[in-house]
């Protein structure tokens, strides 16, 4: 397969920037009390979301996690719909019923963030079964964290997908921390990628701060899945620059880790490459940033101007028909 061309590289660059700047603005808005709830952002981890999404088709499916804004943005979800949902507004993608951790945008194949870790790992095989039964060439990617790889559903889901050769790609975002518990203190055997061998499927460790490495691994896994050869497991190592949740004092780690993350900034890395290859210069980079900032500010303006849901709408969307009977 050929590596991504200039347009694809520039699109990945813009997409990572979109995720980064969205998350940074979301953090500010949360700190200023504009966004309610518990906010988990993916600042520093953008290369995983974007490397994966860039290897997918528009009609492929994604199952996400509690740290899912980046996955949704990279898959092409509406920034307006997402931001309005974070605000709890009536015209958020889920009309304010889901919020940050329980959001879906079915129009782009994003079947849901998830408040429960590893839950997507057992849902993905079913999506794969449906794809197979419909004789479609779609695939499904399920994201999960290094901590989630120690839950039962990870093992049940990988086993089932491998057993039935389902078109699933399991993508572990290993950011070293299961909330506040270090990877080494929670994960026997150390390598999550190595667990693939136990189920007879490829398991590959990639640099999750290198968007091209992620893109390459997922492209191969996607090809294998579309070809009917079954699932793959990818463990992408990355670093989250921020707390597990917004407001996390992070007493469990030193400042050096975030410094390391910043040094290995996936966006700066791709930017250097683009400049080296003369695909981008400083003026163009500034224009890309300006245009992404404008998109995000538009989304914020939209969210601010959007109405809150009517309180009684708490009763709708429970069943297909409304009103329902107890």
């Amino acid at each position, binding site marked *: 397969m050929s590596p991504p061309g200039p347009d694809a590289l520039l699109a990945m660059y813009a997409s990572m920037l979109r995720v980064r700047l969205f998350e940074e603005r979301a953090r500010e808005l949360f700190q200023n009390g504009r966004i309610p709830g518990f906010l988990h952002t993916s600042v520093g981890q953008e290369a995983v979301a974007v490397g994966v999404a860039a290897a997918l088709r528009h009609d492929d499916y994604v199952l996400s996690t509690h740290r899912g804004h980046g996955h949704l943005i990279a898959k092409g979800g509406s920034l307006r719909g997402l931001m309005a949902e974070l605000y709890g507004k009536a015209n958020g*993608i889920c009309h304010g019923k889901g919020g940050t951790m329980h959001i*879906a945008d079915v129009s782009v194949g994003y079947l849901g963030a998830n408040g429960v870790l590893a*839950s997507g790992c057992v849902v993905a095989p079913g*999506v794969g079964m449906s794809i197979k039964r419909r004789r479609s060439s779609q695939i499904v990617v399920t994201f999960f964290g290094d901590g989630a790889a120690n839950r039962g559903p990870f093992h049940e889901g990988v*086993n089932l997908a491998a057993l039935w050769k389902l078109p699933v790609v399991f993508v572990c975002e290993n950011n070293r921390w299961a909330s506040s518990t270090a990877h080494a203190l929670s994960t026997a055997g150390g390598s999550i990628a190595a667990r693939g061998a136990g189920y007879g499927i490829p398991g590959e460790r990639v640099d999750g701060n290198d968007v091209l490495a992620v893109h390459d691994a997922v492209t191969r896994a996607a090809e294998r899945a579309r070809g009917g050869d079954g699932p793959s497991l990818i463990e992408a190592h990355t670093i989250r620059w921020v707390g597990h949740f917004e407001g996390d004092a992070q007493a469990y780690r030193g400042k050096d880790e975030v410094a390391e993350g910043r040094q290995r900034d996936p966006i700066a890395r791709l930017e250097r490459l683009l400049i080296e290859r003369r695909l981008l210069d400083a003026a163009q980079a500034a224009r890309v940033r300006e245009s992404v900032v404008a998109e995000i500010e538009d989304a914020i303006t939209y969210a601010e101007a959007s109405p809150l849901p009517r309180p009684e709408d708490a009763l709708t969307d429970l069943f297909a028909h409304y009103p329902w*009977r107890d």
Partner: protein
Amino acid sequence: MARLDFGDALNLALREEMRRDARVYCIGEDIVLGLPFGVTKGLIDEFGPERVLNAPISEAAIVGSAFGAAVTGLVPVVDMHFADFVTCAMDEVANQIAKSRYMFGGQLDCPLTLRMPYGIGKSGGGHHSNSVEAWFVNLPGLKVAIPSTPADARGLLKTAIRDPDPVLVFEHRGLYRLVGEVPNAETLVPLGVAEVKRRGRDVTVIATARMVHESLEAARRLADEGIEVEVVDPRTLVPLDRDGLAASVRRTHRVVVAEEGPMRGSAGAWLAWVVMEDCFDDLDAPIARVAAPNVPIPFSPPLESFVMTTADDVVAAVRQVVK
């Protein structure tokens, strides 16, 4: 009319729905052979391995995958093997299936049926005997059917499969070999419509599944003493036919709620409250309840018999409310 047992009536419903809609498939442990209760027996011959799937012993993956399939175009019917094992897939049922339409603002249909073989009997013991329907009555986003006859079993399962929302069908394992009349014509039983299983003017007994039959036996015995018992089967706990229950209570003015599960926090407690709310002024006596003591189901026959609710308990409760 044909005479079928409860298990064969369910098998007929599955065949009819799988013939009608190619999206319908069955998944569960040992279902190719139809184990453990014969409900899925022979489906493999007609529908093949693509639609009758023996899954590994992975309840979370069975139920979770059914959810993934349901929201992307298939219509799964999951065999839970024993309802007790749903605990191994509780996140999938409670957090994913029940909440997906709601949390995502109505973006997804989830046409999924969970068949829940359950109930006390034959020394099944603590992990194979429980009546767990109350857990799901307490979980918004799910519908709960609990048939008592072969005709209702077939009609409710067919309706469940066609419903755009997740439906749990509780199949009492003590009823699988119960024989009854089943219409020849394809007949659906709507969710949320109670049925009077026996008419009587003195007391309404509201009962589900096996307790319908225990209540009918109690009614026969009490009729000899001149007490006429009306037995009403809600057939679905969610949605609940409140009007149907109230209509009966307004005729009899006395109520017994009979169930098999433990007394505390149960489906029967909810039904009793509903009757109290809808019919307080019509009641001539406090509502009586028949339910099990608050213990797990024990193994040894005398212990199991002690906690198993029966016609004797219904008779005693009826006598209490007509006193």
